[in-house]
């Protein structure tokens, strides 16, 4: 490993070895069947080669038992594969609740990363070893895909919505970061490095950005600058709903639907406020499409997430059934 000639990327995430184990199982099964089929083919062809020009073998028309055998055995095998790989998949796509959050924005042709503490980096991602990390990702233009082979995971990065990817790095080191979804001219240049660091090194690295303001602080500033706070008041007297404690809760909509106020919902509500109006409010909010960048959206979302609900909680006027 690590040399110029390798068959596998390093196993550097919590699920990398599980993926490899499944891969080895598949390889073993494939080699077995390929070799078995090949040997049978060669053996039959030689043993039953034509001995005279007029030879015609006795006809026979197949047998139900054989057909059933080679229908049922492959069926059982593929079902084993399905259940094993599906379990693996759910591990890979389900981030644990305690994961450290980071934000990724892809654009032609670079990766921009924002950490909660305020650090920003381009084409580099610094993460602590042994801690689950959850990336919330979006694109400013076309499709991209965030791929770290050593972690055995990737996820498409789409414009107009957030997707998620998580991993727990298990081994300090530097690993490839690739864009795996073709995105135009410099697609193969949209690469970078993931640095997995010991926790204390990571803390030190984070501290390097002290003074720039955390995402929440920047979001709060922006919230005021864009005059969001004119309507979204903590005391619930504004023309828009109070946002305190709203994150990750169910929201009753004017249409009768219920949605969870996750990152995608908040994003949509800023860019396209009329799409899902909270019950009890008028759809009077203007769009902020074109007024806030993807990076700023992240800051606003982080700020809204930080509003854990203060003394004003009880007085919120949005008549949500859940008492949000």
């Amino acid at each position, binding site marked *: 490993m690590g040399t*110029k000639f390798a068959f596998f990327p390093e196993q550097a995430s919590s699920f990398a070895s599980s993926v490899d184990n499944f891969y080895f199982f598949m390889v073993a099964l*494939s080699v077995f069947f390929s070799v078995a089929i090949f040997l049978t083919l060669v053996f*039959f062809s030689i043993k039953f080669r034509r001995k005279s020009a007029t030879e015609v073998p006795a*006809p026979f028309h197949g047998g139900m038992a054989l057909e059933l055998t080679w229908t049922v055995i*492959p069926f059982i095998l593929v079902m084993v594969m399905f259940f094993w790989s599906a379990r693996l998949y759910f591990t890979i796509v389900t981030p644990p609740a305690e994961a450290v959050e980071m934000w990724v924005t892809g654009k032609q042709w670079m990766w921009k990363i924002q950490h909660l503490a305020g650090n920003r980096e381009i084409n580099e991602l610094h993460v602590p070893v042994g801690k689950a990390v959850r990336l919330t990702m979006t694109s400013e233009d076309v499709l991209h895909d965030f791929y770290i082979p050593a972690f*055995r995971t990737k996820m498409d990065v789409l414009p107009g919505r957030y997707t998620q990817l998580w991993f727990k790095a298990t081994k300090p080191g530097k690993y490839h970061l690739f864009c795996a979804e073709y995105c135009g001219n410099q697609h*193969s240049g949209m690469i970078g490095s993931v640095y997995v660091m010991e926790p204390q090194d990571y803390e030190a690295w984070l501290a390097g950005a002290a003074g720039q303001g955390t995402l929440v602080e920047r979001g709060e500033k922006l919230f005021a600058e864009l005059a969001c706070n004119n309507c979204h008041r903590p005391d619930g007297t504004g023309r828009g709903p109070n946002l305190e404690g709203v994150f990750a809760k169910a929201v009753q909509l004017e249409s009768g639907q219920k949605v969870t106020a996750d990152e995608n919902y908040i994003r949509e509500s800023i860019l396209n406020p009329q799409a899902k109006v909270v019950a009890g409010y008028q759809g009077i909010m203007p769009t902020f499409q074109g007024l806030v960048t993807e990076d700023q959206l992240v800051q606003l979302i982080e700020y809204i997430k930080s509003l854990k609900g203060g003394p004003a909680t009880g007085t919120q006027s949005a008549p949500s059934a859940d008492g949000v």
Partner: protein
Amino acid sequence: MSTAIESKETRNYLNAGYDLKSWLLTLDHKRIGLLYLFSISFFFLLGGLFAVGIRLELLTPPGDLFQSETYNKLFTMHGIIMVFFFLIPSIPAVIGNFLIPIMIGARDLAFPRLNLLSWYVFMVGGTLAISAALMGGIDTGWTFYTPYSSTYSNSNVMVTAVGVFITGFSSILTGLNFLVSIHRMRAPGMTWFRLPLFIWAHYATSLIMVLGTPVVAVTILLVGVERMFRIGIFDPALGGDPVLFQHLFWFYSHPAVYIMILPALGVMSEIISTFTRREVFGYKFVAFSSVAIAVLGFLVWGHHMFVSSQSVYASLVFSIITYLVGVPSAIKVFNWLATIYKGSVSFGTPMIYAFGFIGLFTVGGLTGLFLAAMGLDVHVHDTYFVVAHFHYIMVGGAIMGYLGAIHFWWPKMFGRMYPEVPAKTAAWLVFVGFNFTFFPQFLLGYLGMPRRYHQYPEEFQIFNVMSSIGASVLALGYALPVFYLVWSLKKGEIAGANPWGGTGLEWKTPSPPPTENFEETPVVTEPAYSYHKEEFELVKS
């Protein structure tokens, strides 16, 4: 079989007319098949040239031979030309056109004029695609993913898209013609279960052509609408949804893979039966497995989208149905093996291709199971593992089938035998060259090299060099037949009506066949693949 001797002098579809008009306005399905043969051979050459550019660039890690923009156009045009203008029409439009009427004992397809129209439509689409290349090319990837294709790409997306759109109609017309012909034009006694398995495979293929192609046509049209009129369909900036495009695109393009492979599976059944003189084992299972693959093929498109943000529960369903496709595919391979068992095996060139096909199709099929595995696909999706897998199916499978078919029916089409030694050499070169080219790409993919990369980190170089070397062997294997096949047209041994001792109706008419295929309508009295010792003894004496 007595007609064999005078086949050169007798009137046949080739000497029915020599002027250009007799070819360009022909309604004879055999001549139309040949028109397709020449056209797609040209497209294969063109697509191959783009591949040469790709393999040369990838010899070294930095992007030093071409600009990124040029490289991206090379792999895009390689994909578009090979998929839409070679692989999809290959066996159906050339071999199927030539053989389906003869095999079912008909004089022609149900709609000869429609058949000629399909070739013209194909050529119009092809000409547009080539002119797009000449105007500077297209760089979206053959998959046209949005919003790159609909908004961001500055290349000739519209011209190419219109070309692909138009070509789709030739597929639909061909499929329709086959379906109607197989239903309505069978000779007396040719019941459904006496049909050669080649016909069953084409029946399944035609279903996909007729039902699937309109969807990709509409999809490409929508990309055009968004690109020209800025109507938001796929681009989120305009209110569209990029993932919708992927659903629509793969709804056709996954079944399209079965358009490429099913006819090859049909060819294999014919070759293996003829070269073992044995009824295909489990005829009905092989026949229905083709139909099962075609039907299931429509329900698996989402396996291209496990990391696209598609719902995980949708992914579960797509994964399990994809695994089900593995079962009929395995059934075919096992039935062929059982056909060879206690057969009378001879090793003509078509049989060498059949052996090669079984090997490559097995590897291609098994690695498909890796990609259907959701947990594993997350890692290998959009890497060279996928590239290797689909080349094993589409090149290892479909092109081996196509070349096997060309050799198998060459004597029928032109009345002459090709020379065995160069033909076998070419078959081996293709097999060895193919594996050298594409097997390293599995390793490359698991190692993490993404596809469509113009430049790449150094540790990937060794496998890329292996791949490029293999590709030159492969190119040699593909070039060789051009020479000896052309040579054989004049100098080849006279083939006679039935050089292989086959049982299909195509072997019961002279080579080359007369324009009307049969002197009198054949009557079928026994199942397909009934070999009789007396007939071989008659030929010998």
